């Protein structure tokens, strides 16, 4: 189980280690960013023993010990468990892992112990496999292939700790190689996972582990063709949805994994019919609303954003395939407009990237829904949106899209927007360096002026004429054409 508390223990250490921690984190973040750009973003998880603390820098027993231990185990005897424990500790070391898999019959030994009659040995054997699965070397995953049919079989067993270890082991090895993933699919990992969650639905640690394993499976590049159709056809979607609401005692972790699985499903594939039919949109929305409220209240010390993020994405992508007529029924009466606006504002200074994602969801909500646009106006949310316009990196462009969506619906909305201060906001955004901001601002301005020609005068009185004239000299032809057209056809003709 993952607890964010553990991280805080580390942070509570003395200054040196805190600084080291920060540096390490920043480096790691850079590496992750690059990995994502290379489409190679994969992580593994290591389940520690209860008696271990994270990051304990135990002196690694060393490669030699691995060889020795293996030889002892290989030569028979009844004290196997006593040697399996140190072996699993030894296998935490990456080079020891490589050494081990190169030893002849090493995997055969482990599989034998995994499937033997001694339950304690089984547990230690799976722990060894788990350590191996965490290896940074992708060749190790392939070496674990002989164990996979058993790991999958054990998923329908009853031993919770054991099952947890199997799940994390499977989750760790499946992104490492195509061969492993295909073998797992052929061996029925998807129905096994479905069955596992079903059986252990009340053990949230296992559910979390299963969610992780499924997430790993869904990361493969051809997931949309090879994995997702089978997942959608199984009982997994409804199970994932049923786990979404966080348990107050256990915490967010299982919900986090399931939400990320749902995000992987909705963002890799355009087929949302099944999920929509299961009420995914409604459920994600209502959960988002309650979590969003907590975030807006400043309650961010529990890692809520780890759950808010995938939920936002699910809602955003599900909205994009929901036909306009069905929107109201799909949302099931959940009012999203106000909570989303609050969330953008709340996240802006703490997590601007998430604020941008929230604005994206608002765009999808307002694109074809006159009701949502009307709500933005009647609930007096427009001034808050206008306050977001100075912020860059995609936030203001997305907010401008939302405002444009509103303006596009009705001329009356244009007038209301102008009354709420949009015109003067536009005189500022038209001067921004970002061409997308300028283009969208011109589009909105055009809609307002066409709807209500008196707005042209108001715009001019706010000093808008000179900025439009300046825009006629912009390096972008599309921008120039718009400014010129607006000036000639709608502003200068008013005189």
């Amino acid at each position: 189980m993952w607890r964010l508390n553990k991280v805080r223990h580390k942070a509570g250490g003395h200054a040196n280690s805190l600084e080291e921690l920060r540096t390490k984190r920043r480096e790691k973040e850079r590496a992750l960013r690059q990995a994502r750009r290379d489409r190679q973003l994969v992580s593994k998880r290591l389940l520690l023993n209860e008696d271990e603390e994270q990051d304990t820098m135990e002196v690694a027993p060393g490669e030699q010990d691995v060889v020795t231990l293996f030889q002892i185990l290989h030569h028979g005897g009844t004290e196997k468990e006593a040697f399996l424990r140190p072996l699993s500790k030894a296998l935490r070391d990456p080079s020891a892992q490589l050494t081990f898999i190169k030893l002849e019959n090493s995997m055969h030994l482990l599989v034998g112990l995994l499937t033997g009659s001694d339950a304690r040995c089984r547990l230690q054997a799976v722990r060894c496999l788990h350590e191996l699965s965490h290896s940074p070397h992708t060749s190790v995953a392939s070496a674990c292939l002989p164990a996979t049919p058993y790991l999958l079989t054990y998923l329908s067993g009853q031993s919770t700790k054991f099952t947890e270890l199997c799940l994390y082991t499977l989750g760790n090895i499946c992104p490492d190689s195509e061969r492993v993933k295909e073998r797992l699919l052929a061996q029925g990992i998807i129905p096994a996972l479905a069955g596992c969650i079903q059986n252990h639905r009340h053990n949230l640690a296992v559910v979390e582990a299963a969610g992780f394993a499924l997430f790993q499976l869904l990361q493969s590049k051809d997931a949309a063709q090879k994995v997702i159709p089978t997942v959608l056809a199984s009982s997994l979607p409804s199970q994932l949805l049923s786990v979404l609401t966080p348990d107050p005692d256990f915490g967010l972790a299982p919900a986090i994994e399931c939400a990320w699985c749902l995000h992987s499903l909705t963002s890799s594939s355009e087929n949302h019919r099944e999920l929509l039919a299961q009420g995914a949109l409604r459920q994600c929305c209502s959960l988002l609303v309650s979590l969003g409220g907590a975030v807006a209240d400043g309650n961010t010390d529990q890692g809520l954003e780890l759950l808010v993020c995938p939920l936002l994405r699910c809602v955003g992508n599900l909205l994009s395939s929901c036909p306009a007529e069905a929107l109201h029924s799909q949302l099931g009466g959940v009012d999203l407009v106000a909570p989303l606006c609050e969330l953008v504002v709340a996240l802006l200074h703490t997590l601007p990237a998430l604020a941008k994602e929230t604005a994206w969801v608002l765009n999808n909500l307002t694109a074809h829904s006159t009701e949502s646009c009307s709500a933005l106006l009647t609930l007096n949310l427009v001034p808050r949106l206008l306050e977001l316009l100075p912020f860059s990196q995609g936030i203001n462009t997305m907010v401008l899209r939302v405002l444009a969506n509103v303006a596009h619906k009705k001329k009356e909305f244009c007038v209301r927007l102008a009354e709420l201060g949009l015109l003067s906001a536009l005189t500022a955004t038209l001067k921004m360096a970002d061409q997308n901001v300028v283009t969208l601002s011109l589009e909105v301005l055009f809609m307002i002026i066409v709807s209500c020609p008196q707005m042209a005068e108001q715009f001019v009185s706010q000093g808008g004429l000179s900025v439009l004239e300046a825009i006629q000299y912009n390096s972008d032809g599309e921008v120039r054409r718009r400014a010129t057209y607006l000036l000639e056809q709608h502003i200068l003709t008013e005189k």
Partner: protein
Amino acid sequence: MMLQPDVVRFIAMGESQTHNGDEEEGFRGAAEQQVEGNPFTFSPQLLRLHRDHELFEDGDVFRHMYLQDLFISEAEEQPAPSVSEFGCHISGCRAVFSTLHEYEHHYNSLHRHVCCSCHRSLPSARLLDIHIQEWHDSLFTILAQKQDMYLCLVEGCGQKFRTSQQRKDHLIRLHKYPPDFRFDKSRKEKGTREASREQRTDTAVEAADDVCRSEGVCEVMCGVESNQLEQEESMETHASSEEAAQSEDFSASAQTPETNTERLKPRYSYRVPKTVCFGHGSVRGFRGQRGRRK
């Protein structure tokens, strides 16, 4: 944030799928949209984002920091949101500003009150008027041969002089102006400068290379292309007088073969449509009627 087509699919819902009855009120069926030449294209779009989309980058990195036990929930390390910069629109002017005030100051100082003919920037509407009159108005040139036409630059003085040199003396003597006052260049100097400029630059360069030359600060190019500009009927007389005025200048300086052929070609300066001049002041630079671009 431009969304790359290869990882994003836009789904613009067709009109048949939109439901509400007030279509006439919105822009969907608006007559405006069907007007030819209307460059405005916005329509609301549902944006579906593929999992690899760059918009998702930060959240994904977050997620993996959590998986690798490096996640910290406190806001201490989160970056502050960045604020949009303001950028001068004038093509070629790469000035960027962090506040609106700086932008306004830049624009008002360097790009307002710009002469449509030679693209010089003058600090005020009045000086612009005087400049246009003295440099680009052939009628002025004719009248100046017989009467005092050179107006004192100090507002309220009102005195006029036969030559610009006399005015300059007046400015120095009476108004204590410096002898090298930047906004009182005479046309003779302009001629030399313009000729040398022509030798340097390409005819393909549409605008003067010094919209703000008077300040000597930056070099700004007006990016308006020649094929965008039309000959205005009402400008024909003006144009020919322009040409005449400019050919006068060239007679005063050495001519290269290039400048000779340039004389025969239509000059770029009068091709700038009236409606695209900067500031209200420059409207007065054209004595002719305001034309409409077709």
